[in-house]
């Protein structure tokens, strides 16, 4: 009985010393599972497209180097006082290291056609385990109906 007591006591002590991991905790397998690709625009109406891409009004992490490091927590869009569209994406750095990413936005009209030139790449400096906001404004007002954000690692 005594022989068994010592290891159990040791294990209990070890459990008490276990360090607590700071938030956020990113479950990458679940994040990957939630990723939903949709058919892209077909060349001929009524035919299925061979392209599968991210749905409209979403963030597409195009760089495998940061796919399992960053998590897009939320995306929101609103009209400004002049009618242009402001998109805001909240990006979480799941790692214990500084990450630098860059993002750009393409705005689309109601027919799915790009309504203006794609925005310039905007850098995001993400401190370890913090979240940062990526913001972009459209140039057009009433013509803008949707958007697609692309994100990659800054080289």
């Amino acid at each position: 009985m005594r022989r068994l007591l010592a290891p159990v006591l040791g294990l209990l002590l070890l459990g008490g010393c276990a360090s607590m991991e700071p938030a956020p905790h990113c479950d990458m397998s679940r994040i990957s599972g939630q990723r939903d690709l949709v058919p892209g625009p077909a060349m001929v109406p009524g035919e299925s497209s061979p392209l599968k891409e991210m749905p409209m009004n979403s963030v597409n992490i195009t760089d495998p180097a940061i796919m399992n490091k960053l998590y897009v927590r939320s995306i929101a869009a609103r009209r400004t006082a002049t009618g242009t569209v402001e998109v805001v994406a909240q990006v979480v750095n799941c790692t214990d290291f500084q990450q630098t990413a860059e993002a750009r936005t393409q705005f689309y009209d109601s027919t799915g056609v790009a309504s203006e030139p794609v925005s310039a790449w905007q850098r995001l400096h993400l401190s370890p385990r913090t979240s940062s906001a990526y913001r972009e404004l459209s140039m057009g007002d009433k013509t803008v109906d949707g958007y697609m954000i692309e994100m990659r690692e800054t080289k």
Partner: protein
Amino acid sequence: MRRPYALSVAIAAALALAACQRVDNTAGAPTVYIDPGTSGPVKGVGIESQDVIAMTDQMLRDMLSQPRLANAAMPPNVIIDSEYFHNESSSRLNKNSITDRLRVGLNRAAAGRMQFVGRHYADMVAKERDLKRQGTVDKATLPAAGAQKGGDYRLGGRITSLDSRDPKTGMMQRYNQIIFEMVDLETSEIVWSGIYEFAKAAQDDIIYR
């Protein structure tokens, strides 16, 4: 005996074909052209093409979201040039590359929400107006204007920098700050401001020409 052989050949051919139809995920042919919106093979601590593109893109999008500039009952007359845009930084650059890109981008995107005055062409316009009024040339097709357009707002701004160098390693660091301000040409009120800042660090500064 023949059937399994034919089947295996068909399967092998189908597999080979499927392999051929994968995405050819390899680098493209090398070229001297590079994307001006992304940092190229020559990188330094100064202001580079990707910075000019990023800062002007950000500023023009922000200006178009300001009701006073982009949603006025009467589209304002705006002057955007480098006359009052000063470079006080240690970066050697042609400040026209910033103001020209801003004016062109804004003019194309504004679609009538603002009107742009080419004050840097005032001399050219004055000469032609004189020739028309002297009768040296005909009146052309557009109706005569009483005077050249005056400006409601004009762009001002400043580029500043802060340099530091580690003498042991030769590592150089530069903080660049670029401010843009739109000034009311009657009251001198600053009706819009924008700031773009970044810091870069590199082993040795490159030569900008």
